[in-house]
């Protein structure tokens, strides 16, 4: 696929993903309205070629749903996903008969209709996912060679034995498992946590993808191993030019290699901007709180921590107005009724908070 450099690898616009909550038979018979969980609510972002974007937020904020939707494991409810300029999903709705109706009015099977421009299979050749737990994402009964070679088989690539051997060898080598041959016949249980995660990464890289979706790839690993995996991802980006969407709840792990950070709360992006700016001048109260609780390995730097009370509310019950207002330490009257728009606070740095809007209009007034 020849793509001009200027086309982003990934372009997500107004992505919405909601899940219907299962009803009891009684409730269904009484025709009670079905409740809906809006896991992802109007999210837009771009990922440039060779860029690392960190998607940060707490459990239940919708970050994993985004990744699953991007790779076609979930259908988007509405919105558009473009991969290297090609649409990979269009909004579709289901008829009573279970068929999908596209905006164009055509009816067809699920896969056919939701991916009219790029098939799932072709998408997954270019976008690969790295899951959280390397203890559960590897088949315990397959050898490392089979695990890494399987994607080639699925996609009908490198059919010749020699070629396949080469691809697997170089994927393992790229993932830092050297000498590669010594790992071919090993089983996952013979490997350490860090080595397992490297096998997962090799399995993703063997297809030479343009995009890696890494869902908390280091949160199950020890700190010393974490550093190795983060450095490895960083090398892959530099040497292979792969773009990475890095999903995590820990701002600390992204500081070192993400170019940009998007902070997500309850299905929506609340702040996004270049890493350095977001870390040094966070604008949204939620980002500030998240940053303040990142443990710093220096007892002399114990800071004032903003510990938010409670937990992220259930997405079935999104608060009105700004969805962060019930937990916000600087909440104002306006926040309870109106959802704040995005305010540009720096170059490519935006945040959605009424406080910013206010200071922005004050600035404008002062300038006038």
């Amino acid at each position, binding site marked *: 696929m020849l793509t001009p450099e200027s086309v982003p690898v990934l372009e997500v616009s107004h992505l919405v993903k909601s899940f219907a909550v299962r009803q009891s038979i009684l409730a269904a018979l009484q025709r009670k309205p079905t409740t809906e969980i809006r896991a992802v609510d109007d999210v837009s972002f771009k990922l440039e070629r060779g860029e690392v974007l960190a998607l940060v937020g*707490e*459990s239940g904020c919708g970050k994993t749903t985004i990744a699953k939707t991007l790779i076609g494991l979930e259908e988007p409810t509405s919105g558009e996903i473009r991969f290297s300029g090609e649409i990979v999903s269009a909004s579709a709705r289901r008829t009573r008969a279970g068929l999908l109706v596209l905006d164009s009015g055509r009816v067809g099977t699920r896969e056919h209709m939701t991916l009219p421009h790029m098939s799932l299979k072709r998408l997954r050749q270019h976008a690969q996912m790295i899951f959280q737990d390397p203890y559960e994402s590897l088949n315990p009964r397959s050898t490392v060679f089979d695990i890494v070679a399987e994607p080639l088989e699925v996609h009908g690539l490198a059919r010749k034995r020699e070629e396949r051997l080469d691809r697997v060898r170089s994927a393992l080598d790229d993932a830092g498992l050297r000498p590669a041959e010594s790992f071919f016949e090993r089983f996952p249980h013979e490997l*350490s*946590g*860090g*080595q397992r995660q490297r096998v997962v990464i090799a399995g993703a890289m063997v297809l030479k993808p343009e995009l890696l979706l890494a869902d908390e790839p280091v949160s199950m690993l*020890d*700190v*010393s*191993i*974490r*550093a*190795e995996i*983060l*450095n490895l991802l*960083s090398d892959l980006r530099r040497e292979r030019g792969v773009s990475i969407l890095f999903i995590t*709840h*820990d*701002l*600390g*792990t992204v*500081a*070192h290699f993400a170019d940009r950070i998007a902070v997500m709360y309850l299905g929506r992006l609340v702040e996004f901007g270049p*890493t*350095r700016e977001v*870390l040094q001048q966070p604008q949204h109260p939620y980002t500030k*709180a*998240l*940053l303040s*609780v*990142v*443990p*710093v*390995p*220096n*007892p*002399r*730097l*114990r800071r004032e*921590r903003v*510990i*938010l*009370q409670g*937990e992220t509310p259930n997405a079935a019950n999104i608060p009105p107005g700004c969805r962060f207002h019930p937990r916000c330490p600087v909440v104002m009257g306006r926040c309870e009724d109106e959802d704040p728009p995005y305010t540009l606070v720096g170059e490519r740095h935006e945040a959605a908070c009424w406080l910013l809007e206010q200071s922005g209009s004050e600035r404008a007034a002062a300038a006038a």
Partner: protein
Amino acid sequence: MAESPLLSVRHLSVDFLMQDGQKGHALEDVSFDILQGHTLGLVGESGCGKTTTLMAIMRLLPASARITTGQVNYNGQDLLSLSERQMRDFRWKEMSIVFQGAMNALNPVMRIDEQIREPILLHHLMTSSQAAGRVGELMELVGIPKERASQYPHEYSGGMRQRAMIALALACSPSLLFADEPTTALDVMIQAQVLELLKGIQEKLGLAIVLVTHDLGVVAEVCDSVAVMYGGKVAESGSIDSIYNTPQHPYTERLLQSFPDLNRPAGDLASIPGTPPRVTDLPPGCRFEPRCYKRIEICATTAPPMLETSPGHRAACHLCRGPVSSY
């Protein structure tokens, strides 16, 4: 010493008999002290013996493990010489444990308040109606709303379960609390809430806490002193300030550097190549020698002695200088 420690562990060694008949040295010569009302961080990678240390102190090791040498002194009493019956009196009333993985450590088919009432009644501390009041107190202490007390674990979030685990551990008012990776599977915000809770409880009740974790950031936030473990041994121990600012052991040094720091967000992180040794296949000299970037000839053959590099700061490394530690 001005204050005698609440718990002092000396030269504790534990062997495991593996399935294939091999012997694994899970712990060797582990020594440390905990003062009343203080928090000790026990830090190291998976498999370095942190949990085994706790289990040995509580005498909860599996049947395949044996304590070969050492003393565990709790308030002047040697726990290792107690009978199982006497030991049972110690557990929960004197020392208790918040187990790793709050997801799996609670009984899924028992209501939370019943689970917390159980140890109180088992230890014959109060009548059943008094126990109900005690459960209420504990719930309030850890911040679980009254109306949720009689729910089942699956109705709780990860953070709530961890709160319930802490209430459970505190049920019989122990003086010493072991917390085994209490925040590892939790989000940073919930982690901060749980750490804040532990600190608050410690202030209120004057508890001593041993916090087991692989996360040096967590230790820096809440601990008074640290013991860094590697391959079943203590590599370095001391006050939090001296360990973080003047680490003596190359392992501690590297662990600190491999930690992502928000204040210097550039460049690669230092990593520690290789993997920790297996307990059945330990290096003959210093346990860290195969992965150490500062190793010298002697490291491969001779295990370094524990040296007191400055008052209260101990490290086991051939490159360190100081008198041999008294323990």
